């Protein structure tokens, strides 16, 4: 299994913000540290030069009212300002880490006490409290001030660390560590702490920013150490001498610009760090996205032109209620473009129940969103057509598509998802389906419709008044089902609708779906990974592997005589209740879409692999006549789409063979992993 990188973090997510932030801060730090060595520091003392001079060649930023050279003072001031920020940041973060860890890891009393103090700190205005203490000091020691600020600002970090620790505690690797004999303390330091490093870095930057902010505020207010120049002191002195009103812009603007630069640098650094660490924040991949967009438009344009030449038979018996033609969906990752759905074609007749089975990496989830044109970046529809009753969903306008949704094609979402708006009750979420599709009825009549549709899915009317979080998993799915059937659509796409439900509830939900399907005579596309479920519910089945459709046919036919080796091995690996047998799964590893093998994606795991399989990708075709069903021969002719369509397979064993040979034994010696020879 090839690996793209050998680092702890998955992708590099270096953004312009991060780079800009690092550069700016580094620059300022260098100026602050090296600057004082390169200039004449005496010019920063009071009375060193003639006061109130405007900028000139000798004095870049002019002089202030106390006789200091502004430029020199500025350079001298950077380091103390940064220093205080770093010290208070360190104190704040160290305290925050320690207390957050204690709080999150041990819980109980320590947690309660720490949280109370953290709440107190939230209520206490930091600046005011600092003023309270510092105002008593004559010449506030910069270190002491930094300490005080650190002590007042640890709460934010602690809260973040605590919540992260709680999340980590849930993950079973801490339990595994204990099972490995690690003591509690070891688990804390060896397992939990390293995963807090990213958060710590981000908190550190935030704490530095806050530290500098508070200290600067103190100085501007006049509570700073009057002797050592810092940026805040410069602003204070300039205010004291009314530099703004006197128009001495050269005195107050340089420190302000420098401060602004520091804060901006810190901000971008922290922004960039967030994106670097957190895999959930989408990173704009810029150029590639624009390229793919262009491809998408090209695909749409070419499809437009073939539209004119191909015969569009409006009769859905010929074209089916859903016709998917050469669908290609790709998505971008930081490591390359992945073909999640690769040239898939199939047809669904009105009232037909089709199951689409696939494991991880098969592309089934991507397919669902594509069928409803809900594909969102980083996924893009690269090619193909999806015809609903002859109408190409990819070519119609957004408004037309919107009208079709729910009314003609409805989605029943995955059971594990939160498909219902958590802050609105069930009733309006059912009603808005009606409302948006132009059903103009009185409120009362709409309410009756809601009750009716709930009853159809076996729920009592009072469910409509509940909020989603008050319903069980099965009930939520039934609500989703109610919404899906509310406008009697022609096609229902059920995306793993029972995957998170208990087996008893699952059966109930599927029986209800079954009945509704018959009542509406709607076609249902059931996506899943459970062969048993699909067998019980569906009439026909499609098997997906690595983004391609590898077998298609009636369920009974495919079960009884699986043609594709993958299907065969898959069925054989299923446990059943017939009697105990030897268990064997499909050897090898599931396909890694970024590094697919050459030729047939299944060949490294296939007991019948031939040389041809390594070189040529098989196309899906009728097993007997070898007829390519993606062609456009006139319907009805012998060997034409309709008659051959019922059974298809994508495998080089056909049409020379009529069924799979016997599998003598499935030994791992015959099967190679996707090693470098087999890959592109």
């Amino acid at each position: 299994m090839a690996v793209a990188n050998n680092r702890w973090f998955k992708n590099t997510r270096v953004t312009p913000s991060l780079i800009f932030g690092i550069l700016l801060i580094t620059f300022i730090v260098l100026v602050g540290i090296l600057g004082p060595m390169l200039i004449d520091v005496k010019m920063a003392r009071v009375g060193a030069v003639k006061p109130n001079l405007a900028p000139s060649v000798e004095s870049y930023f002019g002089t202030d009212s106390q006789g200091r050279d502004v430029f020199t003072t500025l350079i001298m001031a950077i380091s103390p300002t940064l220093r205080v920020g770093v010290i208070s940041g360190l104190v704040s973060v160290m305290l925050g880490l320690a207390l957050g860890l204690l709080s999150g890891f041990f819980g109980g009393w320590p947690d309660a006490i720490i949280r109370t103090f953290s709440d107190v700190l939230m209520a206490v205005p930091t600046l005011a409290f600092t003023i309270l203490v510092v105002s008593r000091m004559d010449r506030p020691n910069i270190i002491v001030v930094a300490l005080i600020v650190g002590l007042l600002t640890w709460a934010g970090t602690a809260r973040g660390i605590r919540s992260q620790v709680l999340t980590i505690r849930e993950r079973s690797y801490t339990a595994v560590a204990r099972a490995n004999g690690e003591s509690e303390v070891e688990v804390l330091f060896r397992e939990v702490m390293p995963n807090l490093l990213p958060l710590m870095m981000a908190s550190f930057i935030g704490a530095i920013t806050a530290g500098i902010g508070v200290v600067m505020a103190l100085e501007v207010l006049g509570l700073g150490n009057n002797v050592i120049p810092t940026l805040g002191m410069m602003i204070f002195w300039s205010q004291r001498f009314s530099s703004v009103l006197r128009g001495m812009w050269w005195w107050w603007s340089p420190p302000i610009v420098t401060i602004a630069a520091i804060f901006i640098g810190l901000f971008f650094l922290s922004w960039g760090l967030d994106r670097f660490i957190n895999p959930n924040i989408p990173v704009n991949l810029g150029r590639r996205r624009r390229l793919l967009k262009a491809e998408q438009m090209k695909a749409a344009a070419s499809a437009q032109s073939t539209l004119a030449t191909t015969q569009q038979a409006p009769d859905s018996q010929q074209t089916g209620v859903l016709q998917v033609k050469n669908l290609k969906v790709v998505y971008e990752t930081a490591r390359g473009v992945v073909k999640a759905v690769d040239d898939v074609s199939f047809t669904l007749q009105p009232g037909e129940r089709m199951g689409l089975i696939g494991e991880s990496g098969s592309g089934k989830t991507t397919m669902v969103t594509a069928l409803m044109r809900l594909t969102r970046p980083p996924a893009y529809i690269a090619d193909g057509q999806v015809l609903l009753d002859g109408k190409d969903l990819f070519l119609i306008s957004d408004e037309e598509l919107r009208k079709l949704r729910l009314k003609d094609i409805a989605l029943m979402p995955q059971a594990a998802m939160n498909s219902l708006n958590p802050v609105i009750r069930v009733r309006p979420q059912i009603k808005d389906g009606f409302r948006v599709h132009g059903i103009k009825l009185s409120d009362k009549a709409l309410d009756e419709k809601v009750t009716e549709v709930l009853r159809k899915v076996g729920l009592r009317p009072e469910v409509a008044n509940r909020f989603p979080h008050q319903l069980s998993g099965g009930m939520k799915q039934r609500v989703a089902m109610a919404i899906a059937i509310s406008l009697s659509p022609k096609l229902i796409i059920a995306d793993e609708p029972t995957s998170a439900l208990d087996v008893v509830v699952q059966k109930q939900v599927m029986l209800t779906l079954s009945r509704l399907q018959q009542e509406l005579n709607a076609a249902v596309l059931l996506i899943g990974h459970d062969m048993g479920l699909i067998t019980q519910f569906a009439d026909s089945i499609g098997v997906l592997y690595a983004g391609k459709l590898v077998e298609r046919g009636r369920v009974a036919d495919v079960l009884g005589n699986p043609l594709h080796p993958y299907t065969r091995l898959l069925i054989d690996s299923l446990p059943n209740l017939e009697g105990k047998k030897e268990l064997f799964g499909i050897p090898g590893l599931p396909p890694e879409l970024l590094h697919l093998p050459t030729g047939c994606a299944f060949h490294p795991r296939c007991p019948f692999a031939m040389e041809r399989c390594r070189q040529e990708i098989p196309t899906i075709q009728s097993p007997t006549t070898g007829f390519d069903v993606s062609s456009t021969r006139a319907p009805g002719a012998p060997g034409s789409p309709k008659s051959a369509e019922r059974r298809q397979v994508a495998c080089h064993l056909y049409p020379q063979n009529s069924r799979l040979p016997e599998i003598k034994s499935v030994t791992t010696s015959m099967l190679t992993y996707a090693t470098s020879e087999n890959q592109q």
Partner: protein
Amino acid sequence: MLKYIGQRFLQFLLIIFIANSLTFLLPRIIPGDPIQEALTAKAATAGRANVDIQAWAATYNAKFGLDQPLWRQYINYWFDMFRLDFGYSLNDYPATVMSKIQAAIPWTLGFMSVAILLAFIVGSALGALLAWPNSPGWIQGMVPILMIISAIPFYLFGLALIWIFGVKWRLLPTGGAYDPTLILRWDWKTTANILQHAILPATALVLFGVGSWALSMRATMITILGEDYITFAQSKGLPDRDIFLRYGVRNALLPQVTGLAISFGLILGSGVLIESIFTYPGIGSLIYGAINSKDYFVINGTVAIMVLCAASALLIVDILYPLIDPRIRYDK
């Protein structure tokens, strides 16, 4: 539910207790006699350096009860707290601290709350729009600008604004809440004058605020727009605007409003810098003046009021949140 309110209220009391105890302790731990220092400072400015400071200090101490043992002072402190009696201003004796606070609060509250609210509304609206993937390019281009604005502390804006509008172009007044020569009355002239003086400080605040609120709203909205119920809503054929408002913004508002409430809680504290730069006579200036004249009672009293305000805001947030988030309001 009642139990929940009870718990939160206890927490509120606990916070007040701890915070105010700290307010009591911290200044007293630091060595030095505040009264003496204040008097010294006052004497120095008033030019009467020959007066016997010690005697003067003794009088004050007796008057303010500072010569009593610490625990006695602590109990008296709490008694005073209940009556909101913070003693007398050292600087402007016989004016009470409370009277000074009362004079200053309306200015701060009035000006800051309008600024915060404005910043919140404009910022959140902007942030929500920024999160919508279909918004035009020029809107998206505002993100870096907003990032920069929100990074810079607002009082720095203030200085720049004073210079540009107050000094260079002489359009707006450079400080104060109203013209010193004006007599305050409830009439149009007064109001106009007050508004005129409030424009610059409010602008500084709003600019900064818009940046922060917009970015935080954008972040929340982006997370929410990635949720499953958005996809399902789209699959129902709901128009974009409906989804954006009822499914997106409606959910994003919850954390945002919490943030707003907390901002209001810290309202008194946030104004310190802006008011000192613009010499706006609110709580901020009050503290600023007190720092300079070492008027510790005013400082203590002001901080205590700030804590009360912030803790109350937190309590209110905790009580009101269940009202807007049904997940907390209704049990299973």
